[in-house]
């Protein structure tokens, strides 16, 4: 069940250039979380200057608290950055669906995270690691300054940077093409900026590789009321809250979709 909850900021600190992590105490919401892919949505600013909540993927859950990893993008995320421990933030959640692992059928999982898309991917990475499920992880950024993980190909963690300042030089696609070639039966799960998803979409479609994307979309409510956050679908996958066939509501039917079910 979704809930609205005010929670104390437990910590809020810089992870890398322009990237922050905030831990918020949200016992009620965290007890309802079903898994990676789901998100919460935060009110930002004072009064109604910024009327819309900011959707943020759940990056981890620990002892009644939820962590988000966010990138400074505009005024809402700047406001988030300025919060200090002890301040109270209001959240609604958990919203949306989770990655569905039962579709993987023994295939080899390659996780791909780019930019702020790392949040749900890291949550999934942690879960798979806990369950001792083998998988590879690719995290892309422009330069080393934006990376906060350790490049560790031996343990399956591959960083990429556009300038080669850490990890493999190039985009996540460079690494993905290599790894997808190496493993027998790849299954790709990705979240990141639209150009990255578009490149993966093209790649998987050409190669006939299956997978799932967590997508982003501008939304006003996150609860199915406004019908604003639609994405175009290729088949009729609409559920209860969308009412439509051509478009699907990212907040309620998504944000996780089978790659071949949507148009990017």
């Amino acid at each position, binding site marked *: *069940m*979704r*809930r*609205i909850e005010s929670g104390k900021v437990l910590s809020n600190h810089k992870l890398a250039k322009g990237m922050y992590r905030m831990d918020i105490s949200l016992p009620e919401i965290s007890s309802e979380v079903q898994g990676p892919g789901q998100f919460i949505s935060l*009110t930002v600013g004072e009064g*109604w*200057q*910024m*009327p*819309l*909540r900011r959707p943020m993927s759940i990056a981890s859950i620990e002892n009644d608290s939820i962590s988000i990893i966010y990138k400074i993008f505009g005024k809402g995320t700047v406001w988030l950055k300025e919060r200090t421990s002890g301040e109270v933030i209001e959240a609604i959640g958990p919203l949306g669906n989770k990655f569905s692992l039962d579709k993987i059928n023994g295939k080899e999982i390659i996780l791909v995270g780019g930019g702020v898309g790392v949040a749900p991917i890291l949550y999934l990475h942690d879960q798979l690691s806990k369950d001792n499920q083998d998988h590879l992880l690719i995290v892309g950024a422009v330069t080393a300054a934006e990376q906060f993980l350790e490049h560790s190909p031996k343990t399956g963690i591959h960083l990429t940077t556009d300038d080669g300042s850490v990890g493999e030089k190039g985009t996540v696609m460079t690494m993905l093409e290599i790894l997808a070639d190496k493993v027998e039966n790849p299954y790709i799960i990705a979240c990141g900026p639209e150009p990255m998803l578009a490149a993966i979409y093209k790649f998987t479609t050409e190669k006939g590789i299956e997978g799932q994307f967590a997508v982003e*979309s*501008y*939304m*006003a*409510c996150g*609860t*199915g*009321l*406004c*019908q*604003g*956050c*639609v*994405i*175009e679908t290729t088949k009729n996958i609409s559920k209860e*809250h969308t*009412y*439509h*066939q*051509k*478009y699907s509501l990212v907040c309620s039917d998504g944000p996780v979709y089978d790659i071949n079910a949507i148009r990017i």
Partner: protein
Amino acid sequence: MTDLNTTIGSIELKNPILVASGTFGYGEECDEFSDVNQLGGIITKSITLHPREGNPPPRIVETASGMLNSIGLANIGVDRYISDMLPKYDELDTTVIMNIAGSSLTEYINVLEAVEAVPNSLAGYEINISCPNVGEGGMEFGVDCDLTSQLTSELRQRTDKLLVIKLSPNVTNIAAIAQSAEAAGADAVSAINTVVGMSINPATRKSNVYTKLCGLSGPAVKPVGVAAVYKISQSVSIPVIGIGGITKGEDVAEYLLAGASAVQVGTANFRDPAAGLQILTEFHDFCDKNNISDLTELIGRLQNDT
């Protein structure tokens, strides 16, 4: 304790706070946050004759204290509204008003007749006249007195239920449109629908919303709504329902003082699906603090010496 009852036509509302069309879905999406039975009423999402997918994305962008939307009347169509939604409204203990949209006079009539033909517990209809009329070269019904009058009287002939005409602020003289609706038999008018707006990303030189022109709502439009209600209530004798930017109890009082008999909460539901109930609590407190015994002490009681 203030008596919060208010009357719109023949319908008595338990309190003056309703939720606005298109901002509360079909009334069931946010069950877990909000007991709709405590609200004065629900206006359901605009329904057209056939289901509509709505406009391509992006459909939404935030603006200073507001938002722009161009949903494109995405809805399930009247057949599914009748089969899936109407039975659910029988179970509710609040006033449910159906909002109807159309792109021709015939479409409005067909939708209303389809619903009139089945037994249901709807209190009545709110007619969204901010729709382009295909037959009249795309001119909106709501910008023209004659079209408004024709539409209202055609619908009036076909229903005894509450008939509310929802007015667009994007007109030269909103009071004149309200008078046309009144003369043609409307029980009430509601105002305002969204204000035409647009937002461009200077870096990409593209519109931030697919349809370019879209509708502004939220606190940014509240003064526009209050002024519209004031102008209308000065020129008609049917009740006015105030809409636009309501986020707190005092906003309700402001609309009532300008002449509204009830209000609708829209955009605020997006931040908090229980906004209507929160606003109700605040409004109740406001009334108690100001020793208001019933709402006639507020409605239209703007003091003229500033």
